[in-house]
C-alpha cells in the first residue's frame, strides 16, 4: 500500500470509512511528516494533539456504527489567518505575537464539525499581503520544489497562502485552508502544482478570519486535486449570520455534481490576458488548456474584457484602503503587542506599537491606503477605483452573454526564487495580474496544475465562472485535470 501521507482527502475519507486504516494511523503519519519538515518553515504552530483527538473521535464513531461525518479522519492544515480557539493566531505578524483567540472562526469550526482535525497553523505573508511568502514576520516558507539542474536556489511557494501551498505539495497535509484577496489561493496553488478554489464572494463566512480587505477576502480550500477541493469547500461554505456579507443560500453538493463532460458549455478566452512579455511556455500551456477543454466537449469563443489592464491599479487602491481601515484596530490596547516608550502618551504608544509590530509591506500598504483615503484625494483615487471596479464587473457580465466559463493562465510565470522580486513592489504586484480581476468582481475561480516548464516547475491554468457557479468551475477544472495527467511531485530534500 502507498504511504498514508500520499493519499488525498477523498482517499483518506473513503479508507477510514471502509476500515482500510484507522483515522489515528493517518493522523500519526501526517503528524510525523509535519515534525520532520522544519526546513520548509510551513507551519508556525504544530497541533498534533488536535489532529489525534479528531482522529480518535472518527474511529470511535465508526466503531459505534454512527454515520460518518463528511471529512471524518482527514487532518488538514489551517492558514494562520483563521482564529482558532486556544491556539496562537498571528496572521504571521509580530503585532499579534502571543495572541490566543478566545473563539473559533466560522470556517475552521465548520471543518471541525465535519470531522476534520488540525495538524497546525500555516505560515503566510503577513496579514495576507504578499505574493511570495516573504513578508511573514516568522521567516520565509521555502517551496518544496526545486529547479531541475538549476542548483538549489530556494523558490517562493507563492503567496499569501504559501505555507498552505508548500504543505500540501510536500504531502505534509492532504488539504489546507487558504484565503484569497487578489489571488492568494490560486497563485500559490499554481506555483506548487496543486489545486485551489476561491469561491464566490460570500460563500464562506469571514467571521473570525483576520481581515485584510473585507470586500475581497474569501476563504477556500487548497488540495491535491479537484475532487478534494470540492469536498473541502462543501465543508467550509455556508450561511453565517455573524458575517453581514454571507450569502443565505444552500451549499450545493459539489462533489456529487462533479463531471468532466463539458458538452454544451462555452468557454471564453479573453484576448486581453495575452500580456506583453508572457513566457512562451505559459502561452503554450494556455493553448494546451484550450485544446483540452475543446476535447472535453466545450465550445471555445474569444471574448473581450476591455478593462483588464486597470484591474491591478484599481486593486492597489481598494485593497490598501480597506486594509488601512481594518488594521486600525491594532493599537496596543486590546490584544497583541504594546510598545510603550518611557514617558510616551497615548498617541505615541499607538505609533510606537504599530511601527514596531507591522512589517515593511504592511506599513507600505497602510500608508498607501491612508493616502488615497485622505482629504482631497478620496474621489480621485478611491471613488475612481470603485467606478473602475464596476466597469470590470460589467466586462465579466458582458462576457457571460457569450460564454459560461473563462480560461486563462493563473500566473504570468512559474515560481521565482526567494529574493528575486522582493526589492520591487510593483514587479511583485504584477504576479496577480490574472487573478485580481475576478477577485474585484467577486467571481469563483480556480487554479489547477497544467504541466511543467523547462526547469521542471509547475504551471497552473485558471478557470473563472459566473457568480455562484462553483460547479461549472470545478467541472472545467476536472476536465483539465483528467487530460493533464499531472503526477509530478517535488523530490524530498527537506
Amino acid at each position, binding site marked *: 500500500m502507498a504511504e498514508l501521507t500520499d493519499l488525498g482527502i477523498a482517499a483518506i475519507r473513503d479508507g477510514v470509512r471502509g476500515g482500510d486504516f484507522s483515522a489515528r494511523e493517518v493522523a500519526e503519519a501526517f503528524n510525523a511528516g509535519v515534525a520532520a519538515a522544519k526546513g520548509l518553515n510551513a507551519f508556525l504552530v504544530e497541533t498534533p494533539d488536535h489532529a489525534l483527538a479528531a482522529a480518535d473521535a472518527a474511529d470511535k464513531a465508526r466503531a459505534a456504527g454512527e454515520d460518518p461525518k463528511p471529512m471524518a479522519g482527514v487532518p488538514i492544515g489551517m492558514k494562520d489567518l483563521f482564529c482558532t480557539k486556544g491556539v496562537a493566531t498571528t496572521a504571521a505578524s509580530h503585532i499579534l505575537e502571543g495572541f490566543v483567540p478566545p473563539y473559533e472562526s466560522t470556517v475552521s469550526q465548520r471543518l471541525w464539525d465535519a470531522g476534520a482535525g488540525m495538524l497546525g497553523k500555516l505560515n503566510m505573508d503577513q496579514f495576507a499581503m504578499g505574493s511570495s511568502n516573504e513578508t511573514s514576520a516568522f521567516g520565509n516558507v521555502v517551496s518544496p520544489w526545486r529547479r531541475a539542474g538549476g542548483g538549489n536556489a530556494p523558490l517562493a511557494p507563492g503567496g499569501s497562502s504559501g505555507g498552505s501551498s508548500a504543505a500540501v505539495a510536500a504531502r505534509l497535509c492532504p488539504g489546507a485552508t487558504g484565503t484569497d484577496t487578489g489571488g492568494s489561493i490560486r497563485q500559490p496553488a499554481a506555483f506548487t502544482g496543486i489545486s485551489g478554489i476561491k469561491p464566490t464572494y460570500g460563500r464562506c463566512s469571514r467571521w473570525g478570519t483576520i481581515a485584510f480587505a473585507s470586500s475581497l477576502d474569501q476563504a477556500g480550500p487548497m488540495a491535491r486535486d479537484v475532487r478534494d477541493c470540492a469536498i473541502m469547500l462543501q465543508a467550509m461554505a455556508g450561511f453565517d449570520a455573524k458575517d453581514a*456579507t454571507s450569502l443565505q443560500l444552500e451549499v450545493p453538493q459539489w462533489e456529487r455534481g462533479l463531471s468532466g463532460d463539458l458538452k454544451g458549455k462555452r468557454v471564453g478566452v479573453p484576448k486581453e490576458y495575452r500580456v506583453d512579455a508572457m513566457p512562451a511556455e505559459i502561452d503554450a500551456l494556455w493553448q494546451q488548456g484550450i485544446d483540452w477543454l475543446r476535447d472535453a466537449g466545450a465550445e471555445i469563443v474569444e471574448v473581450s474584457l476591455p478593462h483588464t489592464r486597470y484591474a491591478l*491599479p484599481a486593486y492597489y487602491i481598494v485593497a490598501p484602503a480597506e486594509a488601512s481601515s481594518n488594521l*486600525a484596530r491594532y493599537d496596543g490596547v486590546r490584544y497583541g*503587542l504594546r510598545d510603550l516608550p518611557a514617558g510616551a502618551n497615548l498617541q505615541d504608544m499607538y505609533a510606537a506599537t*504599530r511601527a514596531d509590530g507591522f512589517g515593511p509591506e504592511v506599513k507600505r500598504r497602510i500608508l498607501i491606503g*491612508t493616502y488615497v483615503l485622505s482629504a482631497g484625494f478620496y474621489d480621485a483615487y478611491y471613488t475612481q477605483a470603485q467606478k473602475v471596479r*464596476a466597469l470590470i464587473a460589467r466586462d465579466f457580465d458582458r462576457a457571460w452573454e457569450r460564454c459560461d466559463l473563462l480560461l486563462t493562465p493563473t500566473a504570468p510565470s512559474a515560481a521565482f526564487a526567494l529574493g528575486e522580486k522582493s526589492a520591487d513592489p510593483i514587479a511583485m504586484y504584477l504576479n496577480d495580474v490574472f487573478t485580481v480581476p475576478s477577485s474585484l468582481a467577486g467571481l469563483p475561480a480556480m487554479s489547477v496544475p497544467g504541466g511543467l516548464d523547462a526547469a521542471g516547475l509547475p504551471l497552473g491554468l485558471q478557470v473563472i465562472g459566473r457568480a455562484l457557479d462553483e460547479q461549472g468551475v470545478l467541472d472545467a477544472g476536472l476536465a483539465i485535470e483528467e487530460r493533464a495527467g499531472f503526477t509530478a511531485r517535488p523530490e524530498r530534500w527537506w
Partner: protein
Amino acid sequence: MSVEPATVKRVAGLARIAITDEDAERLAPELGNILGWIEQLGEVDTSGVEPMTAVIANRLRLRPDVIDADPLTGGGVRDALMAGAPEAEHGFFTVPKVIE
C-alpha cells in the same frame, strides 16, 4: 509622481505609525512609484458609472431584536476578551494617562 518626505510623515501621522526622517526619505520615492503607477486609472472614462458598493448583490439582514441573539457575539464574555490585553486592570483596558 513625486511624493515629498514631509507628505510621507503627514500620512504616517494619520496612520499612527512612527517613522524616522530616514524612513520618510526612503519611503517617499517608493510610494511615489506606486502612486504614479495607480494614477493610470485617471485615463478611464467613468462618466455615468456608479462606484461599486457591493460585489455580489445581497440583502442586508436584521438580527432578532433580543439580548445575546448569538451567544458568541453577545455579551457576558468580558474576561475571555480581556485575557489577551497587553495590560488590563479591574476589568478595564489600561492606557497611558490622557487627562491631566
